[in-house]
Protein backbone atom coordinates (compact mmCIF):
# COMPACT_ATOMS: atom_id res chain seq x y z
CA UNK A 1 0.00 0.00 0.00
CA UNK A 2 1.27 3.45 -0.90
CA UNK A 3 1.71 6.10 1.76
CA UNK A 4 -1.04 8.19 0.20
CA UNK A 5 -3.60 5.46 0.78
CA UNK A 6 -3.06 5.41 4.53
CA UNK A 7 -5.07 8.49 5.56
CA UNK A 8 -8.18 7.00 3.99
CA UNK A 9 -7.37 3.61 5.48
CA UNK A 10 -6.87 4.98 8.98
CA UNK A 11 -10.13 6.90 9.11
CA UNK A 12 -11.93 4.09 7.35
CA UNK A 13 -12.99 6.12 4.32
CA UNK A 14 -12.85 3.74 1.38
CA UNK A 15 -13.14 6.36 -1.33
CA UNK A 16 -10.39 8.46 0.20
CA UNK A 17 -8.21 5.37 0.28
CA UNK A 18 -8.97 4.64 -3.38
CA UNK A 19 -8.35 8.17 -4.61
CA UNK A 20 -5.84 9.32 -1.99
CA UNK A 21 -2.90 8.99 -4.36
CA UNK A 22 -4.63 10.97 -7.09
CA UNK A 23 -5.43 13.70 -4.57
CA UNK A 24 -1.86 13.71 -3.26
CA UNK A 25 -0.62 14.11 -6.84
CA UNK A 26 -3.16 16.87 -7.28
CA UNK A 27 -1.90 18.62 -4.17
CA UNK A 28 1.59 18.48 -5.68
CA UNK A 29 0.36 20.14 -8.87
CA UNK A 30 -1.48 22.82 -6.90
CA UNK A 31 1.68 23.56 -4.90
CA UNK A 32 3.81 23.72 -8.04
CA UNK A 33 1.35 26.02 -9.79
CA UNK A 34 1.17 28.40 -6.85
CA UNK A 35 4.88 28.37 -6.01
CA UNK A 36 6.02 29.04 -9.57
CA UNK A 37 3.36 31.60 -10.44
CA UNK A 38 3.67 33.60 -7.22
CA UNK A 39 7.48 33.74 -7.30
CA UNK A 40 7.78 34.57 -11.00
CA UNK A 41 4.85 36.96 -10.58
CA UNK A 42 6.73 38.69 -7.76
CA UNK A 43 9.74 39.43 -9.96
CA UNK A 44 7.43 40.66 -12.70
CA UNK A 45 5.53 42.77 -10.18
CA UNK A 46 8.72 44.47 -8.96
CA UNK A 47 9.47 45.56 -12.52
CA UNK A 48 5.89 46.63 -13.07
CA UNK A 49 5.70 48.63 -9.84
CA UNK A 50 8.95 50.46 -10.54
CA UNK A 51 7.88 51.07 -14.13
CA UNK A 52 4.51 52.32 -12.93
CA UNK A 53 6.11 54.80 -10.50
CA UNK A 54 9.33 55.92 -12.15
CA UNK A 55 9.00 54.96 -15.80
CA UNK A 56 8.31 57.27 -18.71
CA UNK A 57 4.74 58.35 -19.26
CA UNK A 58 3.90 55.68 -21.88
CA UNK A 59 5.16 52.94 -19.56
CA UNK A 60 3.07 54.24 -16.65
CA UNK A 61 -0.05 54.23 -18.80
CA UNK A 62 0.77 50.77 -20.13
CA UNK A 63 1.35 49.32 -16.65
CA UNK A 64 -1.79 50.83 -15.18
CA UNK A 65 -3.73 49.48 -18.17
CA UNK A 66 -2.23 46.05 -17.51
CA UNK A 67 -3.13 46.05 -13.82
CA UNK A 68 -6.64 47.38 -14.46
CA UNK A 69 -7.22 44.70 -17.08
CA UNK A 70 -6.03 41.75 -15.00
CA UNK A 71 -7.56 42.96 -11.74
CA UNK A 72 -10.85 43.84 -13.39
CA UNK A 73 -11.63 40.47 -14.97
CA UNK A 74 -12.15 37.03 -13.38
CA UNK A 75 -9.22 34.63 -13.29
CA UNK A 76 -11.45 31.93 -14.76
CA UNK A 77 -12.15 34.08 -17.81
CA UNK A 78 -8.44 34.84 -18.26
CA UNK A 79 -7.63 31.16 -18.02
CA UNK A 80 -10.21 30.24 -20.66
CA UNK A 81 -8.98 33.04 -22.91
CA UNK A 82 -5.41 31.71 -22.70
CA UNK A 83 -6.13 27.98 -22.86
CA UNK A 84 -9.01 27.89 -25.36
CA UNK A 85 -8.64 31.34 -26.95
CA UNK A 86 -4.92 31.35 -27.66
CA UNK A 87 -5.08 27.63 -28.41
CA UNK A 88 -7.31 28.57 -31.34
CA UNK A 89 -4.29 29.95 -33.21
CA UNK A 90 -2.63 26.57 -33.35
CA UNK A 91 -1.06 27.07 -36.79
CA UNK A 92 0.54 30.32 -35.69
CA UNK A 93 1.99 28.78 -32.52
CA UNK A 94 3.28 25.84 -34.52
CA UNK A 95 4.98 28.28 -36.91
CA UNK A 96 6.72 30.14 -34.12
CA UNK A 97 7.49 26.90 -32.29
CA UNK A 98 5.46 27.61 -29.14
CA UNK A 99 2.66 25.12 -29.64
CA UNK A 100 4.10 22.81 -26.99
CA UNK A 101 3.47 25.61 -24.49
CA UNK A 102 -0.09 26.53 -25.40
CA UNK A 103 -1.13 22.91 -25.87
CA UNK A 104 -0.58 22.01 -22.24
CA UNK A 105 -3.15 23.03 -19.61
CA UNK A 106 -0.39 23.20 -16.99
CA UNK A 107 1.71 25.78 -18.82
CA UNK A 108 -1.39 27.77 -19.78
CA UNK A 109 -2.55 27.85 -16.16
CA UNK A 110 0.95 28.79 -15.05
CA UNK A 111 1.10 31.66 -17.55
CA UNK A 112 -2.36 32.94 -16.59
CA UNK A 113 -1.73 32.75 -12.85
CA UNK A 114 1.64 34.45 -13.22
CA UNK A 115 0.37 37.45 -15.16
CA UNK A 116 -2.68 37.67 -12.89
CA UNK A 117 -0.79 37.61 -9.61
CA UNK A 118 1.84 39.96 -11.06
CA UNK A 119 -0.89 42.56 -11.57
CA UNK A 120 -2.11 42.22 -7.96
CA UNK A 121 1.39 42.15 -6.49
CA UNK A 122 2.42 45.16 -8.57
CA UNK A 123 -0.40 47.18 -7.01
CA UNK A 124 0.64 46.01 -3.53
CA UNK A 125 4.26 46.99 -4.14
CA UNK A 126 3.27 50.30 -5.66
CA UNK A 127 1.20 51.15 -2.60
CA UNK A 128 4.03 50.08 -0.31
CA UNK A 129 6.66 52.14 -2.16
CA UNK A 130 4.35 55.14 -2.09
CA UNK A 131 3.88 54.75 1.67
CA UNK A 132 7.58 55.20 2.34
CA UNK A 133 7.86 58.73 3.75
CA UNK A 134 9.11 61.41 1.40
CA UNK A 135 11.94 62.33 3.75
CA UNK A 136 13.60 59.00 3.04
CA UNK A 137 13.93 59.88 -0.64
CA UNK A 138 15.16 63.37 0.19
CA UNK A 139 17.63 62.04 2.76
CA UNK A 140 19.22 59.63 0.36
CA UNK A 141 19.32 62.33 -2.30
CA UNK A 142 21.15 64.54 0.18
CA UNK A 143 23.61 61.71 0.78
CA UNK A 144 24.30 61.73 -2.94
CA UNK A 145 22.81 58.30 -3.67
CA UNK A 146 21.90 57.48 -7.22
CA UNK A 147 18.20 56.83 -8.04
CA UNK A 148 18.69 53.10 -8.28
CA UNK A 149 20.79 53.00 -5.14
CA UNK A 150 18.05 54.95 -3.35
CA UNK A 151 15.45 52.49 -4.51
CA UNK A 152 17.48 49.40 -3.76
CA UNK A 153 19.13 50.41 -0.47
CA UNK A 154 16.70 52.85 1.14
CA UNK A 155 13.19 52.56 -0.22
CA UNK A 156 12.78 48.87 -1.04
CA UNK A 157 13.79 47.46 2.37
CA UNK A 158 11.17 49.66 4.01
CA UNK A 159 8.54 49.09 1.35
CA UNK A 160 8.95 45.30 1.51
CA UNK A 161 8.09 45.29 5.20
CA UNK A 162 4.92 47.24 4.49
CA UNK A 163 4.11 44.91 1.60
CA UNK A 164 4.72 41.74 3.59
CA UNK A 165 1.22 41.27 4.95
CA UNK A 166 -0.71 41.97 1.72
CA UNK A 167 1.74 39.76 -0.17
CA UNK A 168 0.97 36.95 2.25
CA UNK A 169 -2.72 37.49 1.61
CA UNK A 170 -2.09 37.37 -2.12
CA UNK A 171 -0.27 34.05 -1.71
CA UNK A 172 -3.28 32.64 0.13
CA UNK A 173 -5.67 34.00 -2.49
CA UNK A 174 -3.60 32.30 -5.19
CA UNK A 175 -3.70 28.96 -3.36
CA UNK A 176 -7.49 29.20 -3.33
CA UNK A 177 -7.84 30.59 -6.84
CA UNK A 178 -5.62 27.88 -8.29
CA UNK A 179 -8.64 25.58 -7.93
CA UNK A 180 -10.03 27.02 -11.18
CA UNK A 181 -7.20 25.25 -13.00
CA UNK A 182 -9.33 22.12 -12.62
CA UNK A 183 -11.74 23.64 -15.17
CA UNK A 184 -9.17 23.38 -17.97
CA UNK A 185 -8.77 19.62 -17.45
CA UNK A 186 -5.83 20.00 -15.10
CA UNK A 187 -5.73 17.46 -12.27
CA UNK A 188 -4.69 19.70 -9.43
CA UNK A 189 -6.13 18.97 -5.96
CA UNK A 190 -9.54 20.28 -7.04
CA UNK A 191 -9.37 18.49 -10.39
CA UNK A 192 -8.39 15.19 -8.80
CA UNK A 193 -11.23 15.55 -6.31
CA UNK A 194 -13.71 16.30 -9.09
CA UNK A 195 -12.50 13.23 -10.93
CA UNK A 196 -12.84 11.10 -7.82
CA UNK A 197 -16.32 12.46 -7.12
CA UNK A 198 -17.45 11.80 -10.69
CA UNK A 199 -16.40 8.17 -10.27
CA UNK A 200 -17.48 7.45 -6.71
CA UNK A 201 -20.33 9.94 -6.08
CA UNK A 202 -18.94 10.23 -2.58
CA UNK A 203 -19.51 13.81 -1.51
CA UNK A 204 -17.25 13.47 1.52
CA UNK A 205 -14.30 13.61 -0.87
CA UNK A 206 -15.06 17.30 -1.38
CA UNK A 207 -15.00 17.76 2.38
CA UNK A 208 -11.60 16.07 2.61
CA UNK A 209 -10.32 18.33 -0.17
CA UNK A 210 -11.69 21.35 1.68
CA UNK A 211 -9.86 20.18 4.80
CA UNK A 212 -6.60 19.80 2.85
CA UNK A 213 -6.91 23.32 1.42
CA UNK A 214 -7.78 24.66 4.85
CA UNK A 215 -4.75 23.05 6.48
CA UNK A 216 -2.54 24.27 3.64
CA UNK A 217 -3.78 27.83 3.99
CA UNK A 218 -3.44 27.74 7.79
CA UNK A 219 0.14 26.47 7.53
CA UNK A 220 1.04 29.17 5.02
CA UNK A 221 -0.64 31.82 7.15
CA UNK A 222 1.20 30.80 10.30
CA UNK A 223 4.57 30.41 8.61
CA UNK A 224 4.09 33.82 7.02
CA UNK A 225 3.22 35.33 10.40
CA UNK A 226 6.46 33.93 11.83
CA UNK A 227 8.36 35.22 8.84
CA UNK A 228 6.84 38.66 9.33
CA UNK A 229 7.68 38.76 13.05
CA UNK A 230 11.21 37.68 12.25
CA UNK A 231 11.70 40.36 9.61
CA UNK A 232 10.26 43.14 11.75
CA UNK A 233 12.02 42.20 14.98
CA UNK A 234 14.16 45.36 14.79
CA UNK A 235 11.11 47.57 14.87
CA UNK A 236 9.95 49.10 18.14
CA UNK A 237 6.22 48.82 17.55
CA UNK A 238 4.71 45.60 16.46
Amino acid at each position, binding site marked *: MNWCEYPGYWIGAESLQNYGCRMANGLGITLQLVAYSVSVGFVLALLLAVGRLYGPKWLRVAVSGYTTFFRGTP*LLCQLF*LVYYGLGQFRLFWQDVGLWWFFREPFSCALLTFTVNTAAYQAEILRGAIQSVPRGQFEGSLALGLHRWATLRLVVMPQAMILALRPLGNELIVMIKSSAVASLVTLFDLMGATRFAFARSFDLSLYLYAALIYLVLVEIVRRVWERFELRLTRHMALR
Partner: protein
Amino acid sequence: MFDKFALLGFGPGGWGLALLQGAGITIAIALATLPFGLALGLAVALCKRADSALLRGFATVYTTIFRGVPELLTLYIIYFGLPILVQQLFALAGSTASFAIPPFLAGMVALGMVLAAFSSEVWVGALNAIHKGQREAAAALGLSNAQAFRLVVLPQLFRVALPGLGNNWMVLLKETSLVSVITLPDIMFITTRANVVTKEPFLFFGAAMAIYLVFSLISAWGVARLETRSNRGFAAFGGTTR
Protein backbone atom coordinates in the same frame (compact mmCIF):
# COMPACT_ATOMS: atom_id res chain seq x y z
CA MET B 1 -12.61 39.22 -39.92
CA PHE B 2 -15.77 41.30 -39.71
CA ASP B 3 -18.08 38.36 -40.34
CA LYS B 4 -16.71 36.95 -37.07
CA PHE B 5 -17.87 40.00 -35.17
CA ALA B 6 -21.37 39.36 -36.50
CA LEU B 7 -21.36 36.41 -34.06
CA LEU B 8 -21.47 38.93 -31.24
CA GLY B 9 -24.31 40.86 -32.88
CA PHE B 10 -28.07 40.55 -32.65
CA GLY B 11 -28.67 39.31 -36.21
CA PRO B 12 -29.41 35.69 -37.16
CA GLY B 13 -26.74 33.43 -35.66
CA GLY B 14 -25.60 36.27 -33.42
CA TRP B 15 -25.02 35.67 -29.71
CA GLY B 16 -25.61 39.29 -28.70
CA LEU B 17 -28.91 38.71 -26.94
CA ALA B 18 -27.66 35.60 -25.13
CA LEU B 19 -24.59 37.51 -23.95
CA LEU B 20 -26.78 40.33 -22.67
CA GLN B 21 -28.94 37.85 -20.77
CA GLY B 22 -25.79 36.27 -19.35
CA ALA B 23 -24.57 39.69 -18.25
CA GLY B 24 -27.96 40.23 -16.61
CA ILE B 25 -27.63 36.96 -14.68
CA THR B 26 -24.13 37.91 -13.54
CA ILE B 27 -25.38 41.24 -12.25
CA ALA B 28 -28.44 39.61 -10.70
CA ILE B 29 -26.49 37.03 -8.70
CA ALA B 30 -23.92 39.60 -7.58
CA LEU B 31 -26.63 42.02 -6.43
CA ALA B 32 -28.66 39.25 -4.77
CA THR B 33 -25.60 37.97 -2.90
CA LEU B 34 -24.42 41.37 -1.70
CA PRO B 35 -27.04 42.21 0.98
CA PHE B 36 -27.14 38.62 2.23
CA GLY B 37 -23.34 38.39 2.46
CA LEU B 38 -22.89 41.81 4.04
CA ALA B 39 -25.60 41.26 6.65
CA LEU B 40 -24.18 37.86 7.56
CA GLY B 41 -20.72 39.43 7.64
CA LEU B 42 -21.89 42.09 10.07
CA ALA B 43 -23.44 39.41 12.27
CA VAL B 44 -20.14 37.47 12.25
CA ALA B 45 -18.28 40.68 13.06
CA LEU B 46 -20.56 41.31 16.04
CA CYS B 47 -19.93 37.72 17.18
CA LYS B 48 -16.19 38.37 16.99
CA ARG B 49 -16.59 41.26 19.39
CA ALA B 50 -19.10 39.52 21.64
CA ASP B 51 -18.45 38.89 25.34
CA SER B 52 -19.34 35.25 25.03
CA ALA B 53 -16.31 33.09 24.26
CA LEU B 54 -18.61 30.65 22.46
CA LEU B 55 -19.73 33.27 19.94
CA ARG B 56 -16.18 34.50 19.44
CA GLY B 57 -15.01 30.95 18.86
CA PHE B 58 -17.79 30.36 16.35
CA ALA B 59 -16.90 33.54 14.45
CA THR B 60 -13.22 32.63 14.31
CA VAL B 61 -13.95 29.11 13.06
CA TYR B 62 -16.39 30.49 10.49
CA THR B 63 -13.95 32.98 8.98
CA THR B 64 -11.07 30.50 9.07
CA ILE B 65 -13.10 27.97 7.12
CA PHE B 66 -14.56 30.23 4.49
CA ARG B 67 -11.39 32.21 3.96
CA GLY B 68 -9.33 29.07 3.60
CA VAL B 69 -11.43 26.90 1.31
CA PRO B 70 -11.48 27.72 -2.42
CA GLU B 71 -14.73 29.35 -3.54
CA LEU B 72 -15.12 26.74 -6.25
CA LEU B 73 -15.02 23.98 -3.66
CA THR B 74 -17.48 25.80 -1.40
CA LEU B 75 -19.80 26.12 -4.37
CA TYR B 76 -19.62 22.39 -5.13
CA ILE B 77 -20.13 21.44 -1.50
CA ILE B 78 -23.21 23.66 -1.19
CA TYR B 79 -24.63 22.65 -4.57
CA PHE B 80 -24.19 18.91 -4.16
CA GLY B 81 -24.11 18.66 -0.37
CA LEU B 82 -27.04 20.80 0.75
CA PRO B 83 -29.69 18.67 -1.03
CA ILE B 84 -28.27 15.53 0.60
CA LEU B 85 -28.35 17.21 4.00
CA VAL B 86 -31.94 18.35 3.51
CA GLN B 87 -32.90 14.90 2.24
CA GLN B 88 -31.45 13.32 5.36
CA LEU B 89 -33.38 15.76 7.52
CA PHE B 90 -36.53 14.85 5.60
CA ALA B 91 -35.70 11.18 6.07
CA LEU B 92 -35.55 11.72 9.82
CA ALA B 93 -39.06 13.09 9.58
CA GLY B 94 -40.02 9.96 7.65
CA SER B 95 -40.32 11.58 4.25
CA THR B 96 -38.59 10.25 1.14
CA ALA B 97 -39.01 13.44 -0.89
CA SER B 98 -36.02 14.12 -3.13
CA PHE B 99 -34.68 17.60 -3.15
CA ALA B 100 -32.62 19.68 -5.55
CA ILE B 101 -31.31 23.17 -4.96
CA PRO B 102 -31.59 25.66 -7.84
CA PRO B 103 -28.17 26.81 -9.09
CA PHE B 104 -29.00 30.46 -8.45
CA LEU B 105 -29.77 29.79 -4.79
CA ALA B 106 -26.70 27.56 -4.38
CA GLY B 107 -24.50 30.22 -5.93
CA MET B 108 -26.04 32.89 -3.75
CA VAL B 109 -25.57 30.90 -0.55
CA ALA B 110 -21.99 29.83 -1.36
CA LEU B 111 -20.76 33.22 -2.53
CA GLY B 112 -22.69 34.95 0.27
CA MET B 113 -21.05 32.82 2.95
CA VAL B 114 -17.60 33.53 1.52
CA LEU B 115 -18.44 37.24 1.24
CA ALA B 116 -19.58 37.18 4.87
CA ALA B 117 -16.23 35.79 5.98
CA PHE B 118 -14.27 38.45 4.11
CA SER B 119 -16.57 41.35 4.88
CA SER B 120 -16.63 40.48 8.59
CA GLU B 121 -12.97 41.57 8.72
CA VAL B 122 -13.94 44.90 7.20
CA TRP B 123 -16.86 45.29 9.60
CA VAL B 124 -14.63 44.52 12.61
CA GLY B 125 -12.17 47.17 11.45
CA ALA B 126 -14.97 49.68 11.03
CA LEU B 127 -16.50 48.84 14.42
CA ASN B 128 -13.11 49.37 16.05
CA ALA B 129 -12.71 52.68 14.22
CA ILE B 130 -15.83 54.10 15.80
CA HIS B 131 -14.77 55.90 18.90
CA LYS B 132 -15.71 54.37 22.24
CA GLY B 133 -17.03 57.80 23.29
CA GLN B 134 -19.88 57.45 20.83
CA ARG B 135 -21.21 54.41 22.64
CA GLU B 136 -20.57 55.93 26.05
CA ALA B 137 -22.41 59.07 25.06
CA ALA B 138 -25.30 56.97 23.78
CA ALA B 139 -25.38 55.12 27.11
CA ALA B 140 -25.27 58.44 28.97
CA LEU B 141 -28.29 59.55 26.96
CA GLY B 142 -30.14 56.49 28.20
CA LEU B 143 -30.10 54.49 24.97
CA SER B 144 -30.11 50.73 25.30
CA ASN B 145 -27.29 48.73 23.73
CA ALA B 146 -29.46 47.80 20.76
CA GLN B 147 -30.62 51.38 20.31
CA ALA B 148 -27.08 52.70 20.54
CA PHE B 149 -25.99 50.25 17.86
CA ARG B 150 -28.91 50.97 15.55
CA LEU B 151 -29.10 54.74 15.95
CA VAL B 152 -25.54 55.80 16.70
CA VAL B 153 -23.02 53.19 15.53
CA LEU B 154 -24.66 51.80 12.40
CA PRO B 155 -25.11 55.12 10.55
CA GLN B 156 -21.42 55.90 11.03
CA LEU B 157 -20.27 52.40 10.28
CA PHE B 158 -21.06 52.49 6.58
CA ARG B 159 -18.78 55.42 5.84
CA VAL B 160 -15.78 53.83 7.54
CA ALA B 161 -16.42 50.40 6.06
CA LEU B 162 -17.07 51.61 2.52
CA PRO B 163 -13.56 51.30 1.00
CA GLY B 164 -13.22 47.73 2.30
CA LEU B 165 -16.75 46.77 1.28
CA GLY B 166 -16.08 48.25 -2.16
CA ASN B 167 -13.17 45.82 -2.49
CA ASN B 168 -15.39 42.96 -1.34
CA TRP B 169 -17.90 43.87 -4.02
CA MET B 170 -15.28 43.87 -6.78
CA VAL B 171 -14.05 40.44 -5.65
CA LEU B 172 -17.63 39.15 -5.52
CA LEU B 173 -18.37 40.41 -9.02
CA LYS B 174 -15.45 38.41 -10.40
CA GLU B 175 -16.23 35.36 -8.29
CA THR B 176 -19.69 35.11 -9.83
CA SER B 177 -17.94 33.69 -12.91
CA LEU B 178 -17.59 30.44 -10.92
CA VAL B 179 -21.34 29.81 -10.79
CA SER B 180 -21.18 28.89 -14.49
CA VAL B 181 -19.83 25.48 -13.39
CA ILE B 182 -23.11 24.70 -11.64
CA THR B 183 -24.99 25.50 -14.87
CA LEU B 184 -26.23 28.97 -14.02
CA PRO B 185 -26.36 30.74 -17.42
CA ASP B 186 -24.15 33.73 -16.56
CA ILE B 187 -21.61 35.35 -18.92
CA MET B 188 -19.08 32.55 -18.57
CA PHE B 189 -21.68 29.85 -19.16
CA ILE B 190 -23.02 31.56 -22.29
CA THR B 191 -19.56 32.20 -23.75
CA THR B 192 -18.49 28.62 -23.02
CA ARG B 193 -21.55 27.36 -24.88
CA ALA B 194 -20.98 29.83 -27.73
CA ASN B 195 -17.43 28.51 -27.96
CA VAL B 196 -18.68 24.93 -28.23
CA VAL B 197 -21.11 25.90 -31.01
CA THR B 198 -19.01 28.34 -33.05
CA LYS B 199 -15.42 27.23 -32.27
CA GLU B 200 -14.41 30.86 -31.78
CA PRO B 201 -13.06 30.81 -28.20
CA PHE B 202 -10.82 33.86 -28.56
CA LEU B 203 -13.67 36.06 -29.76
CA PHE B 204 -16.14 34.95 -27.12
CA PHE B 205 -13.85 34.83 -24.10
CA GLY B 206 -12.47 38.17 -25.25
CA ALA B 207 -16.03 39.52 -25.27
CA ALA B 208 -16.62 38.08 -21.78
CA MET B 209 -13.45 39.82 -20.56
CA ALA B 210 -14.68 43.09 -22.05
CA ILE B 211 -18.05 42.77 -20.28
CA TYR B 212 -16.42 41.99 -16.91
CA LEU B 213 -13.99 44.85 -17.39
CA VAL B 214 -16.84 47.28 -18.07
CA PHE B 215 -18.64 46.04 -14.92
CA SER B 216 -15.46 46.50 -12.87
CA LEU B 217 -14.84 49.98 -14.19
CA ILE B 218 -18.43 51.01 -13.51
CA SER B 219 -18.18 49.54 -9.99
CA ALA B 220 -14.92 51.33 -9.28
CA TRP B 221 -16.50 54.59 -10.41
CA GLY B 222 -19.64 53.91 -8.36
CA VAL B 223 -17.70 53.05 -5.21
CA ALA B 224 -15.61 56.20 -5.59
CA ARG B 225 -18.81 58.25 -5.95
CA LEU B 226 -20.30 56.64 -2.86
CA GLU B 227 -17.13 57.32 -0.90
CA THR B 228 -17.14 60.97 -1.87
CA ARG B 229 -20.80 61.18 -0.95
CA SER B 230 -20.45 59.48 2.42
CA ASN B 231 -17.42 61.62 3.27
CA ARG B 232 -19.12 64.92 2.56
CA GLY B 233 -18.87 67.17 5.55
CA PHE B 234 -15.72 65.44 6.73
CA ALA B 235 -13.23 67.16 4.45
CA ALA B 236 -13.33 70.31 6.56
CA PHE B 237 -11.97 68.37 9.54
CA GLY B 238 -9.14 66.79 7.60
CA GLY B 239 -11.19 63.90 6.30
CA THR B 240 -10.36 61.32 8.96
CA THR B 241 -12.23 62.70 11.94
CA ARG B 242 -14.25 60.06 13.69
